[in-house]
């Protein structure tokens, strides 16, 4: 258990806490620490606690820190060890075809750090040698092409910031409020700056035949994950990317090459991309028939529901970040829409009776996470905190009741409903749904 650093400095003032930087007195215990018994140093410190800082200098202010390249790649502070992707072990049969969730409760910007980007694999994470990776474009084209990673890096490059969301994000809350956690209810969305080549550039290079209307995009993983995409979308804003937040893609995100289909469901953003084939008709692959289709109450199903509708969530307070007594708080959250830009976010503290327009934080980018905030004086009484996004097309985020009225509760995917957090007088927060 790790206390929240924003709310308490208990970790930093507790000399026995793991990861506390070594101070002067800790040097006395250094011998013991080096022989593998850190506890000895810690115990000594408890018996003779350091004078409080301030007025005292903190131990790390009176000692010398670690040198450069002591961590040649770098990593978060040891005290951030709880901020990790997490999974729901009972959800899937195997970890190789499963998901992990981003810790949204501990993230403070629109960019998801690369190590915290949510995962969805269907046949595990392959470890690909980029020197051997090949990318093929063929089918209804003039000039079928085989490219190495070196070749791809030579094409004119672009960088774009876009979110990717698994359409099953929130799927566990279709039927009822199930996951008492922001991470597990909303953590299958992440956002990064992607760098690569516009797919339209590559399609110009191969030359499209007139009859080409659809593209089949396929991965090099064991699932040979494949989906059909209409050509219009491919030519509009799709990217074939090799970099994520300025460095090579992470293996979990498709290293060395992935497709980014801005604003469309995560599954079509094929990772470990190895092939694009142009055709006249869609393929109706398993991932667009058996899965990623939305079952309606009348027994029919919707297919090719690619768009991520507008969605928002309050990230503070949330079940993981309760309130610390009455006072002034900044309600914070994230909003996004596959339609383009977020236009407005409203926040309610009374379960949707009254709404207040929040401040959008710059930058507000198309098909990217957007931050919002609203100051709030909490009087310590029960509250129902929720956010509602309106996007640039005028689309308004629905309530779960409105969604269920249209789609029942068996459609698994595309639950973009308003999230309500119940705040109790003791400041604790719970995931609830309103009638």
């Amino acid at each position: 258990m790790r206390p929240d650093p924003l709310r308490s400095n208990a970790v930093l003032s507790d000399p026995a806490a793991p990861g506390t930087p070594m101070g002067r007195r800790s040097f006395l215990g250094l011998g013991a620490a080096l022989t593998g018994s850190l506890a000895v140093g810690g115990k000594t410190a408890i018996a003779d606690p350091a004078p409080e800082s301030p007025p005292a200098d903190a131990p790390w202010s009176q000692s010398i820190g670690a040198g450069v390249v002591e961590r040649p790649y770098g990593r978060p502070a040891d005290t951030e060890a709880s901020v990790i992707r997490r999974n729901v072990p009972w959800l899937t049969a195997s970890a190789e075809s499963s998901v992990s969730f981003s810790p949204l409760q501990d993230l403070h910007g629109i960019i998801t750090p690369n190590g915290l980007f949510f995962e969805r694999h269907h046949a595990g994470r392959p470890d690909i040698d980029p020197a051997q990776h090949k990318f093929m474009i063929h089918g209804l084209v003039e000039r079928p092409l085989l490219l190495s990673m070196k070749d791809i890096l030579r094409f004119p490059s672009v960088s774009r910031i876009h979110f990717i969301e698994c359409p099953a994000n929130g799927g566990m809350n279709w039927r009822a409020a199930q996951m008492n956690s922001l991470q597990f209810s909303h953590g299958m969305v992440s956002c990064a700056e992607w760098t690569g080549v516009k797919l339209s550039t590559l399609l110009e290079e191969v030359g499209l035949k007139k009859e080409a209307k659809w593209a089949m995009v396929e991965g090099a993983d064991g699932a040979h994950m494949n989906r059909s995409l209409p050509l219009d979308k491919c030519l509009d804003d799709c990217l074939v990317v090799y970099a994520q937040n300025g460095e090579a893609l992470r293996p979990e995100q498709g290293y060395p090459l992935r497709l980014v289909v801005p604003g469309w469901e995560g599954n079509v953003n094929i990772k470990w991309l190895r092939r694009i084939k142009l055709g006249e008709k869609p393929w109706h692959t398993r991932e667009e028939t058996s899965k990623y289709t939305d079952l309606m109450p009348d027994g029919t199903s919707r297919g090719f529901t690619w768009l991520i509708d507008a969605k928002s969530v309050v990230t503070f307070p949330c079940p993981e970040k309760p309130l610390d007594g009455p006072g002034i708080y900044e309600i914070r959250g994230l909003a996004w829409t596959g339609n383009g830009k977020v236009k407005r976010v409203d926040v309610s503290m009374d379960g949707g009776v009254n709404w207040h327009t929040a401040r959008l934080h710059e930058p507000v980018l198309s098909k990217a996470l957007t931050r919002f905030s609203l100051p709030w004086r909490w009087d310590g009484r029960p509250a129902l905190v929720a956010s509602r996004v309106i996007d640039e097309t005028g689309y308004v985020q629905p309530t779960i009741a409105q969604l269920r009225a249209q789609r029942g509760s068996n459609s698994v995917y595309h639950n973009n409903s308003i999230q309500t957090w119940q705040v109790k007088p003791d400041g604790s927060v719970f995931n609830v749904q309103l009638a």
Partner: protein
Amino acid sequence: MYSSRKICLPVAAILLAAAGSLAGAAEPGSFGYGSVATPAQIAGWDIDVRGEDGTGLPPGKGTVDRGAEVYAEQCAACHGTFGEGEGRFPKLVGGVGSLRDERPEPTVGSYWPFAPTLWDYINRAMPMPAPHTLSADDVYALTAYILSLNDLVPYEFVADRNSLPKVKMRNRDNFIWTDPRPDTMAKPCMNDCVNAADVRISSTAEGRNLTPRTTGPLDTMQQK
């Protein structure tokens, strides 16, 4: 490992110098990077099959009997001897008529619209520990076996590129392939949008014990 550093600078320079002429470049092969994919290279990777009409299905065939053999060896451990699914692994049979139920069971038998998609998926993704290692004949045989477990074909059925597209799947006509969204209309009301007395919590995640912990090491909880 590849290095981009050596090649990026000259290319940038060339593009700058030739920006005018390259801006509208749409001729195939303008950049000339990589190589034209040969028929043999394409054939090796060109595995996709179109669900609706089976375009792309290779030569070969397989019987239900042969399928049962391969299935027992390579599939039953996860999917159950008769497709009933072990543990949380997917069922490959059942659920017929369940799609409007409180707890629907979508399977090959109850949900899949196209039989060639089954061949394609087994070929590309199964068996899970060794995907894309089966012969075309064995994939046909497995497809025949799973279809017969679902009473979609008779026991004598032989699966091949001609017979598979003709198998009529039960849920074939129940998909709508154009997205009807937006399907919710809401006006962004600001004040007195609902009667405060009517605001009622209909469900809460409190006390459900389904949520893994979000601090400390990864949770290993299983469903109670």
